[in-house]
């Protein structure tokens, strides 16, 4: 069951990362919908899965246009995937990277956030970590509250909380004092967030966060100061930042403030999104997105040579083992995935018996086998210039003038023991990808080509064989197919580098044949320097093509294709008669591209 859920999504580039894991942009294959997928590596969390459960339970009980929509969550190995709605406009913090916002924009954002908070508070939920970094924008300008990592659900609408959570600069005095607080704490944080949008930093940004914790309860409430801000704006901020929570207005009351009532439509925020995109573009960010990389499970094959000696085999254990064998039985086609996870339990009694006679030999293998091999997702930058260029957010973070303090405030989202890091700040773990990559490279597949070859096999060739195999009826054809599949898996094991070169050759030959070129669609024309090989082979269009050729009912992929109509080379279901024409147009377009980007060929 697990794993099958993951295969319903195709992951694209990385959106952000932190100590909890990585957020990817992805596509739900069945619907073509773009989603954001958060991967949490549960192996790296000591504490109970309860915390994460809490986050999911708060999110999944929200249904509001002002809160990021939760879709589903499932396990893949020891990674938890949380699927959420995708918001392409970036976070509030991203917007600030191109400078402070204008008051009129802030008014819109505040109104939308108040609507979101009003919803949450009516539901008995407290967000507890409101700040620019946790505000997400859609490309349409819609504003939504995100990251419910420390949110609380009250069973009683009037009850209070004591837990000390949030991010120091944004924390309300009563939260710091731990004297019991309620949803009013979010209102304070909203006021701080408004200042953050206006000044590009929260108050006290230059102070050490731990010191801020002493400052906030003692010092008078921060105020918005400056000639350029209207009185309405200042009043609004002052109302949010009333130190006594009982005298602080509710979200509903704040919606009636002049500053909010005269705010414009949320579409006006599109300007901001565009400003940031231009800004990113000018700074050559986003040019080399990190692509998702499937876990390389091959290494775990090394294991199961080494085991305990259990000489007496009793009936109950035998039953147990048989059972697990059956369970894992249907997974056999995905040979890599089942690997060592079940290795210990999959052994038959016969195996155990035969071990006995081989005892000496085994003892040696104990010594020579590494003790544990963890599965880690590699994140490899694909472009050639990658090693020198960091991801966009990281790069922008380094350029920020107030880098050290901003950095801390945003990355330590948690005060969940200061361990979690908010979704959208990447400033920590600068060399994460490099480290993980080293860990993951099995010694015999050191070269990049080999890794790509492996990846191509795991992600493309093997699934493709399985797919076509499943659609093939006749016994003879199936046999022929399985022969190649087998031979190819041999190649993959012995010479992944050769596998890569073979694939490369095939692809480039296909590309150069004008009639076959229609097999080869490019999904992201804006970034032609991405690795041709993998994107192309991965392309769902190719799969749907294959499917059509093997005269199977068009399925999910077609719906996806439909949604991508803005790209050339598409054909609408029901419009197949125009296919030839679009194919011709498409290959012309590809030719044009090739002239402009010679590197593609």
């Amino acid at each position, binding site marked *: 069951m697990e794993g099958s859920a993951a295969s319903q999504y195709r992951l694209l580039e990385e959106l952000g990362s932190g100590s909890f894991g990585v957020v990817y942009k992805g596509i739900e294959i069945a619907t073509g919908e773009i989603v954001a997928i958060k991967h949490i590596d549960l*192996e790296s969390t000591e504490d109970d899965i309860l915390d994460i459960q809490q986050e999911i339970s708060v999110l999944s009980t929200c249904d509001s246009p002002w809160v990021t929509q939760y879709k589903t969550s499932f*396990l893949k190995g020891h990674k*938890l995937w949380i699927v959420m709605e995708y918001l392409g406009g970036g976070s509030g913090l991203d917007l600030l990277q191109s400078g402070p916002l204008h008051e009129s924009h802030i008014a819109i954002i505040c109104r939308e956030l108040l609507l979101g908070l009003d919803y949450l508070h009516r539901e008995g939920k407290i967000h507890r970590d409101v700040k620019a970094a946790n505000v997400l924008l859609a490309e349409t300008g819609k504003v939504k509250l995100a990251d419910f990592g420390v949110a609380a659900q009250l069973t009683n*609408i009037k009850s209070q909380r004591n837990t000390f959570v949030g991010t120091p600069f944004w924390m309300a005095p009563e939260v710091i004092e731990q004297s019991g607080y309620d949803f009013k704490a979010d209102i304070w944080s909203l006021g701080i967030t408004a200042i953050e949008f206006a000044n590009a930093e929260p108050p006290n940004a230059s102070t050490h966060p731990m010191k801020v914790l002493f400052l906030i309860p003692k010092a008078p409430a921060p105020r918005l100061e400056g000639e350029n801000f209207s009185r309405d704006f200042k009043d609004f901020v002052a109302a949010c930042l009333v130190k006594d929570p009982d005298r602080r207005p509710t979200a509903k009351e704040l919606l009636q403030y002049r500053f909010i009532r005269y705010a414009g439509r949320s579409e006006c925020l599109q300007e901001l999104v565009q400003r940031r995109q231009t800004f990113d573009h000018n700074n050559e960010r986003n040019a080399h997105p990190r692509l998702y990389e499937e876990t390389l499970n091959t290494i775990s094959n090394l*294991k199961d040579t080494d085991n*305990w000696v259990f*000489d*007496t085999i009793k009936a109950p254990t035998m039953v147990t083992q048989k059972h697990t064998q059956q369970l894992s039985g249907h997974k056999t086609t995905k040979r890599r995935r089942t690997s060592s*996870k079940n290795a210990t339990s999959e052994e038959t009694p016969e195996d155990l018996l035969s071990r006995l006679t081989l005892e000496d030999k085994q003892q040696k293998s104990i010594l020579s086998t590494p003790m544990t091999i963890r*599965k880690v997702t590699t994140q490899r930058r694909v472009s050639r210039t990658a090693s020198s260029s960091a991801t966009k957010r990281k790069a922008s973070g380094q350029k920020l003038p107030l880098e050290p303090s901003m950095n801390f405030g945003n990355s330590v989202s948690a005060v969940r023991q200061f361990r979690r890091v908010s979704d959208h700040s990447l400033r920590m773990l600068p060399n994460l990808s490099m480290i993980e990559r080293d860990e993951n490279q099995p010694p015999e597949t050191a070269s990049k080509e080999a890794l790509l070859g492996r990846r191509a096999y795991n992600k493309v060739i093997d699934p493709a064989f399985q797919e076509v195999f499943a659609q093939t009826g006749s016994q003879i054809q199936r046999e022929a197919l399985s022969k190649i599949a087998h031979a190819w898996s041999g190649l993959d094991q012995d010479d992944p580098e050769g596998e890569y070169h073979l694939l490369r050759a095939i692809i480039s030959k296909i590309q150069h044949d004008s009639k076959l070129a229609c097999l080869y669609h490019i999904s992201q024309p804006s970034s032609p320097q991405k690795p041709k090989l993998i994107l192309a082979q991965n392309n769902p269009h190719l799969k749907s093509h294959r499917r059509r050729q093997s005269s199977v009912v068009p399925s999910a992929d077609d719906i996806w294709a439909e949604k991508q109509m803005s790209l050339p080379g598409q054909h609408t279901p029901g419009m197949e008669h125009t296919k030839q024409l679009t194919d011709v147009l498409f290959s012309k377009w590809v030719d044009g591209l090739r002239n402009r980007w010679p590197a593609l060929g």
Partner: protein
Amino acid sequence: MAFLFRSKSKSDIVKPAKDLLTRLWQPPVSPRTEEELARLLAQMKLILQGTQETESSPEQVSQLVNLIIQEDFLFSLARSIYLLPFESRKDTQSIFSYVLRHKTPNNPNGDQPALKHVLQSRPEVVLALCRGYQHKESAMPCGVVLREALKHEPVAAIIMYDQSQEDERISRLDEIDFDARQSERGVFWNFFQWIDRGAFEVSTDAFTTFREILTKHKQLVAQFLNINFDMFFEKYNRVLIQSNSYVTKRQSIKLLGEILLDRANYSVMTEYVDRGEHLKLCMNLLKDDRKMVQYEGFHVFKVFVANPHKSAAVQKILVNNRERLLNFLPKFLEDRTDDDQFTDEKSYLIRQIETLPAVSR
């Protein structure tokens, strides 16, 4: 005037809602049924909890709770949660919480009439809430209500000692024979399936409730585990400890450690660590390729080794693997340097194993 109007509308609320719930079970369900039901449930919730601005009125609440008891509304509601629309499922969760928690006003004994009613004459409500785990939609609201109800021991007893088939009359509390061995029919045994097979949200929520059942009321659980030892641990080891789901596996190993190390479960613990096959299972966990599984496995393994009265079977396995263990343990999770307790326990185990006789074959 307003008061009169309100109190009239309130008595009209429960019965129509109950009728609408029955209609949910006879498809096709018209959208109007759902809408009307949603409206009534929202209204009930509002009466019970008030709003942020206004307190709820105690008389109205009492009156509503009494009506809910009279109409046997909780059972209809519990079994239908998964059929309700999104917002109504949340409302239902609140209604349950408030109604079960409700105390008769001005009563020093703190009598909870709805809870008492369920425990004494309508335990089917508890089972219906458990069966909420059959559906993704109802799992979480049912889980929240169940865990709150599980603070009361009789609720745990109802769940553990149920022997009924779905929709059958179940034994009342005073009919339960706490010394009888259970068959696998009861609702408690379904938790294994819900945890192992359910979608992530269902599985983790069911596990949280399962843990609550097994850890909250110690005497009750100890007695239950003693009597149903074989069936319980056969299932526990096979379905949960060897689950394909990482989360289930890791959480259930941890819970196993907690159960065994609980003083109240002493006799359960001694029986568990007597069995050779349990030790094997546990030693295999030490060799799992995921560190947290190894780590949780260690906390069960240590019980076997530290046990001063090892059974022949356990002793034999340890002796046969003495050299291997002595090779293996020093390197086991050696990067856990900041975990003093773990390091201490590990070196204690190594010393224990060193005192075992070398293989005498």
